[in-house]
């Protein structure tokens, strides 16, 4: 190994505590990115494969009625591989006093389901007369269990008691909990018991070839439609789902991809820490750079040493974060699988995910290092050789610095902490922005939540007025209220994932911000070690030094809080507006959550104090002699 690489490694080893902090910060960003990206790969693959395993219908044709002759005639078409009749009826289900909306599926022959298969889970299969199977995700909505007696009433039928005899998994249905709806499965005899006509009105068609070609499916379905009509039936509606895709596949994919972009954002923030670290390292090594140039090192060779360090940071972070990312992705996949009601057969992560994560993880610190390294190695040899450590002219030259000197009546320790916070302006800005980003996510999560609750309140109040305007009977109004309550529950369920996501992001960014602040404070302390020696020499106790440094960290935390507080209103309003417009085509009734400001202030102060404590404690333990001798 050449001495250039040895220097790269040993410089990092010399500052191993700080190196570990930076590696952890980058690893956190890469882990988030890897977790979401591999979840995207696993979930989209598994969701579609689960769905395809059910042999999903290429099209669903709704018509007045279906008889065996019609099905036989349709199956004569060589382009139709299968056609199965079903029926779907809406109704109500009561479990004890609890009433829920019900979608009831009537299957022609449970022993021979070939299209849009149902997967038996527990209990009886198939359901007998007087029995109902419930979709596994809908048990929580119905608040029932296998063996319970429930009451079911369809739109045109009579209320009848049925026994919940088992559970099924219907992969192609929207999640019952999200929709706040119960999916039930009965046979034709039970349908008659419920007072409905024993007929089927829904035909699940499966094309013979080109099953993933939507235009081919449309052509075949059009032929089938013509045949149905020539036989005197009325086609009421045709649904052609996106071939080969679970109904929620695209939604899940786009949600996870947007999560990935936030993972990338976290990575960018951790890149800021790399910029801070390398800028400080380059500043501390100006004279060494001068010496290396004096003994024949070219700028490219010397830059190579520091890029080698950035490469090491990236590789170390990738090595740490890949297993963490995989663990994270498994947790996220399990959560999403429960949330989206499907089973994951394999957690295998495709190779492209590993390659992309490694590429991004290694490239990010290299890109972050580019400017500090380029700038640091540009110093002319003579200037570099005459460098005497931290410049004395870094504070006091600007008008802002002089404005800070007017805080004369405060205690000298407080003044010192505040002024010190502003000494390394670029480093301060980058650190504050990272922490402010965490605050923005947190405040936005609370504001969007409050605003959506407010918006839904308004929407549902308006809807209630509209629906009850012509109603006079209290029971009718009660029915509308119940229906609105059910819908409102479904709306709230859909939003939970967004609140949780924003909060989780703020926690991750807060972690990166905390590590960034810890790095910044340790760099600040290192650069000013001699000053601390002077302070100790003129009477400052280790405790005073510790408190001054922690106070400096808290000043940075409060600055970040101020920026987050100022930006929280416009940012969360813009985010919330976009969200509401995309989902409901309606405006957002923006509400600011003042409690969020207070909570984030406490979090900011605690995080800053915790992040600065370790560097402060280490600085307070340096002896006066060591501190004064530091160059």
């Amino acid at each position, binding site marked *: 190994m050449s001495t250039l690489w040895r220097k790269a490694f040993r410089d990092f080893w010399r500052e191993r505590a700080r190196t570990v902090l930076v590696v952890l910060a980058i690893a956190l960003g890469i882990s988030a990115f890897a977790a979401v990206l591999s979840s995207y790969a696993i979930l989209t693959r598994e969701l579609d494969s689960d769905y395809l395993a059910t042999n999903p219908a290429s099209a669903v044709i709704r018509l007045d009625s279906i008889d065996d002759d019609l099905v036989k005639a349709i199956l004569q078409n060589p382009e139709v591989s299968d056609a199965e009749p079903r029926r779907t009826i809406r109704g109500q289900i009561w479990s004890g006093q609890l009433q829920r909306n019900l979608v009831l599926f009537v299957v022609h022959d449970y022993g021979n389901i070939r299209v849009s298969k149902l997967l038996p889970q527990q209990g009886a299969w198939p359901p007998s007369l007087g029995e109902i199977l419930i979709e596994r995700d809908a048990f929580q909505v119905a608040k029932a269990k296998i063996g319970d007696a429930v009451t079911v009433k369809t739109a045109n039928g009579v209320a009848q008691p049925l026994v919940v005899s088992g559970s099924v998994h219907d992969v192609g249905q929207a999640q019952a909990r999200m929709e706040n709806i119960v999916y039930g499965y009965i046979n034709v005899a039970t349908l008659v018991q419920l007072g409905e006509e024993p007929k089927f009105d829904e035909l699940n068609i499966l094309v013979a070839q080109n099953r993933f070609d939507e235009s081919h499916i449309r052509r075949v379905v059009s032929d089938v439609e013509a045949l149905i009509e020539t036989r005197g039936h009325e086609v009421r509606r045709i649904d052609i789902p996106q071939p080969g895709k679970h109904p929620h596949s695209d939604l899940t994919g786009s949600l996870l991809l947007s999560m990935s972009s936030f993972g990338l954002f976290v990575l960018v923030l951790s890149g800021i820490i790399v910029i801070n670290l390398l800028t400080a390292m380059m500043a501390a090594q100006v004279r*060494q750079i001068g010496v290396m140039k004096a*003994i*024949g090192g070219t700028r490219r060779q010397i830059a190579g040493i520091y890029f080698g360090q950035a490469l090491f940071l990236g590789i170390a972070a990738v090595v740490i974060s890949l297993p963490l990312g995989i663990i994270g992705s498994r947790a996220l996949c399990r959560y999403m699988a429960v949330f989206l009601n499907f089973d994951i057969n394999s957690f295998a992560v495709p190779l492209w995910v590993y390659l992309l994560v490694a590429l991004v993880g290694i490239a990010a610190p290299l890109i972050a290092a580019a400017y500090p390294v380029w700038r640091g190695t540009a110093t002319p040899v003579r200037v570099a050789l005459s460098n005497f450590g931290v410049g004395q002219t870094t504070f006091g030259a600007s008008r802002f610095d002089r404005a800070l000197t007017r805080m004369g009546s405060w205690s000298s320790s407080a003044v010192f902490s505040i002024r010190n916070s502003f000494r390394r302006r670029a480093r301060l800005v980058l650190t504050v922005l990272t922490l402010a980003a965490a605050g923005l996510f947190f405040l936005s999560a609370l504001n969007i939540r409050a605003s959506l609750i407010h918006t839904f309140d308004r929407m549902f109040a308006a809807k209630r007025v509209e629906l009850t305007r012509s109603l006079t009977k209290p029971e009718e109004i009660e029915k509308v209220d119940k229906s609105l309550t059910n819908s409102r529950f479904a709306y709230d369920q859909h939003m939970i994932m967004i609140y949780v996501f924003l909060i989780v992001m703020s926690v991750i960014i807060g972690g990166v911000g905390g590590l960034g602040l810890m790095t910044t404070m340790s760099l600040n302390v290192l650069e000013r070690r001699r000053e601390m020696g002077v302070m100790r020499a003129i009477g400052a106790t280790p405790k005073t030094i510790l408190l001054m440094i922690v106070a400096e960290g808290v000043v940075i935390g409060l600055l970040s809080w101020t920026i987050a507080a100022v930006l929280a209103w416009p940012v969360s309003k813009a985010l919330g507006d976009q969200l509401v417009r995309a989902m409901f085509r309606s405006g957002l009734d923006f509400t600011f959550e003042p409690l969020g400001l207070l909570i984030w202030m406490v979090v900011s102060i605690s995080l800053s104090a915790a992040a600065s404590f370790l560097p402060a404690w280490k600085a307070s333990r340096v002896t006066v002699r060591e501190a004064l001798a530091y160059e």
Partner: protein
Amino acid sequence: MISLHDVTKTYETPAGKFAALRSIDLEIQPGQFVGVVGKSGSGKSTLLNMVAGIDRPSSGMIAVAGTTIHQLPENKLAAWRGRNVGFVFQFFQLLPTLTAAENVTMPMDFSKTIPFRERRKRALALLERVGVGPHADKLPATLSGGEQQRVAIARALANDPPLVLADEPTGNLDSVTATAILDLFRDMANRGTTVVIATHEADIARVIDRRIEIADGAIRP
């Protein structure tokens, strides 16, 4: 070996222009051991920096070892310096995270004039030559000032340059160690290397071949 013609160096300072060197004309022959003497701020270090290509003249011409260095761009200058000039600093300036042997190897890694496998062997031989062979694998912080300066001298000889420049190499050493270091430079000149030392100490007469006195940026006749 070294030729300076009408070299002037002026710095812009907050107090106005400061002339560090004024119309310097100088010729140094190969193999000479030259002492540049003068008080602090007289321009000795600036003169050495000009010859090493560490600093550029405001006007004039500098040729060293057959190359007109004041016209070379920064990167080419660094590569040229690596092959042709060994530089010894007053405060040793060893890289703290590299061992003595690694500090000596580094110029070879930069210049790549010596095959990779032979670099450590050469570094050890050079350290042996300057009397710190047993300290080859120690870090600079564990060495005394005199030992560090010997390592720095070994580093200056790494690429076997025809010219060695030393800026106050004994300024930070006790008199016994300083004498030993000056003897090392003498030995170097005896082997054919051109050596130029900047110093404000007068007692180097016994080792040097030629004395150049500089005051207020000009060479005294």
